[in-house]
């Protein structure tokens, strides 16, 4: 062996490459927290992954390159077109599918590792390997099947509504118990592939049963949860295989994925126990997040700022709330700041916005908003489908599809951000279905303060 080859195959060199990969993973995730650096963050993490793969291929014991190339070629041939061709609207189910195959890989690897430990060790395989193998098998299998069901629901292969089966809670508990009992029996020293297969199958059924009762609207949170699961199972596989790259990367995903799941649930006004218990128990709370349910998405100034500054066209729809808060000057400052970033801003003026005709025109003129930017309802409505973000400031009835009058049709915009004091109904006292739309998010608070906060966030971007 040449000196170079022996250096490259030195386990210390390989571990150093792993360390480089960890740094790139962590920096990449950090970058992904911020819109400006997110794209770079993803690329950095991808480089980290490439390094980890190359380092592993250098390991002396790694062999059978023909089969490795075969597997990776199949994976690339499937993965690249799938990622390239998927429609933007179908992204969540694509992520579910990618997550599922990751979980499937963990389950398969743990099964093979178990079979090999039976062949090689002769006597009992060691417990410190068996426990992580069993853990990886159970979680990996749940994740694979759960993700597939999530994909099916989002792709509408399966009905998106919660599917309730009789005695679900009991069946789930029984499945988990079967998997755990078999795991304990194996860990106690029984060598049986059959038991291992039973574990995989019961975990697979559990994965199905866990996701089936959950409504389509909660699916992103569930996918995020399963994503964290897959990370944990990968870390467990790392313990079993004595591979530090798997341990670190898997655990990073397990932990960051859990935090992210909580953030997502918070943003949707849902609690994770609620979603999961709803699924497990088949309780009525499940329906809350559904299309015909009544849950609103609240947002924060930072998020609103990102949506606004990365939009091509923003239509501001002011109402009485802007007048009350005397927010017109701040609104103009925000519009100026957005225009500086190349965003096209217009104002949609409803004939009865405010408490008197022309109320909004007067206020906005006072704030030196150029007259050409003020658009009448008839003029702006046909333009709203080409608008990225409609920013509703203290207007309610004039954008309410159930108000029984012609309205500014903000719901046709790509997304709607509504600045609102509270969930009270408007002057007309009619509940507003717009608030519950999927592309609507609400920013609660005084109009002026909210606009100020958003302005500050836009400036910081």
């Amino acid at each position, binding site marked *: 062996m040449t000196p170079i080859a022996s250096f490259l195959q030195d386990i210390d060199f390989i571990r150093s490459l792993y360390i480089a990969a960890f740094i790139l993973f962590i920096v990449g*995730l950090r970058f992904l927290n911020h819109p400006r650096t997110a794209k770079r963050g*993803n690329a950095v993490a991808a480089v980290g992954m490439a390094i980890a793969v190359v380092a592993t291929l250098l*390991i002396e014991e790694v062999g059978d390159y023909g*089969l490795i190339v075969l597997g990776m070629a199949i*994976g690339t041939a499937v993965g690249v077109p*799938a990622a390239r061709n998927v429609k933007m609207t179908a992204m969540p189910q694509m992520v579910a599918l990618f*997550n599922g195959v990751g979980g499937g890989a963990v389950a*398969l690897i743990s099964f093979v590792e178990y079979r090999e430990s039976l062949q090689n060790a002769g006597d009992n395989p060691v417990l410190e390997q068996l426990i992580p193998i069993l853990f990886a098998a159970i979680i990996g299998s749940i994740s694979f099947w759960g993700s597939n069901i999530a994909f099916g629901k989002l792709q509408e292969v399966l009905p998106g509504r919660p599917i309730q089966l009789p005695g679900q809670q009991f069946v789930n508990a029984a499945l988990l118990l079967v998997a755990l009992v078999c795991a304990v029996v194996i860990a106690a020293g029984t060598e049986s592939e059959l038991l291992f297969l039973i574990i995989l199958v019961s975990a697979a059924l559990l994965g199905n049963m866990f996701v089936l009762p959950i409504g389509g609207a909660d699916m992103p949170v569930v996918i995020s949860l399963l*994503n964290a699961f897959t990370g944990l199972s990968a870390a467990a596989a790392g313990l079993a*295989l004595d591979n530090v790259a798997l341990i670190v990367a898997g655990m990073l995903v397990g932990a960051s994925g859990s935090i992210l799941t909580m953030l997502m649930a918070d943003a949707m006004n849902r609690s994770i126990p609620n979603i999961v218990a709803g699924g497990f128990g088949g309780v009525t709370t499940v329906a809350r997040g559904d299309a015909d349910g009544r849950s609103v998405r609240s947002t924060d100034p930072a998020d609103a700022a990102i949506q606004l500054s990365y939009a091509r066209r923003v239509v501001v729809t002011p109402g009485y709330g802007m007048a009350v808060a005397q927010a017109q000057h701040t609104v103009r400052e925000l519009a100026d700041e957005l225009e500086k970033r190349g965003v096209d801003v217009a104002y949609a003026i409803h004939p009865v916005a405010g408490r008197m005709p022309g109320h909004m025109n007067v206020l906005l003129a006072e704030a030196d908003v150029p007259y050409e930017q003020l658009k009448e309802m008839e003029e702006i409505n046909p333009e709203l489908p080409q608008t990225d973000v409609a920013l509703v400031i203290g207007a309610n009835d004039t954008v309410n599809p159930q108000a029984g009058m012609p309205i500014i049709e903000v719901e046709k915009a790509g997304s709607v951000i509504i600045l609102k004091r509270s969930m009270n109904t408007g002057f007309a006292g009619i509940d507003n279905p717009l608030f519950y739309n999927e592309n609507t998010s609400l920013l609660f608070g005084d109009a002026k303060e909210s606009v100020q906060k958003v302005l500050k966030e836009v400036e910081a971007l």
Partner: protein
Amino acid sequence: MDLLTELTILVLAAFVGFEVISKVPNTLHTPLMSATNAIHGIVLLGGLLLIGEAEGFLDELLLVIAIAFGTINVVGGFLVTDRMLDMFRRRPDPKQERGE
């Protein structure tokens, strides 16, 4: 590596994972989930480590599938995240486009 060293690494990695996610704007939730999703495709390494020692058709078949799955997870995951993040790309000034 002995078990305790591995567990130490595991625990520390968990804390890094918790800390690395701060206050993420809602808009970035899905891309971030998708990127972490791609990272757990690292399980692909498990397939690489085992396949050299695998004997018999069944084990080799299962591992080739596992490697293919892991590769889909990694390659597809990073690509799809990249596409999602295209929405944050800066556009040319629309005012100049319109010749104002």
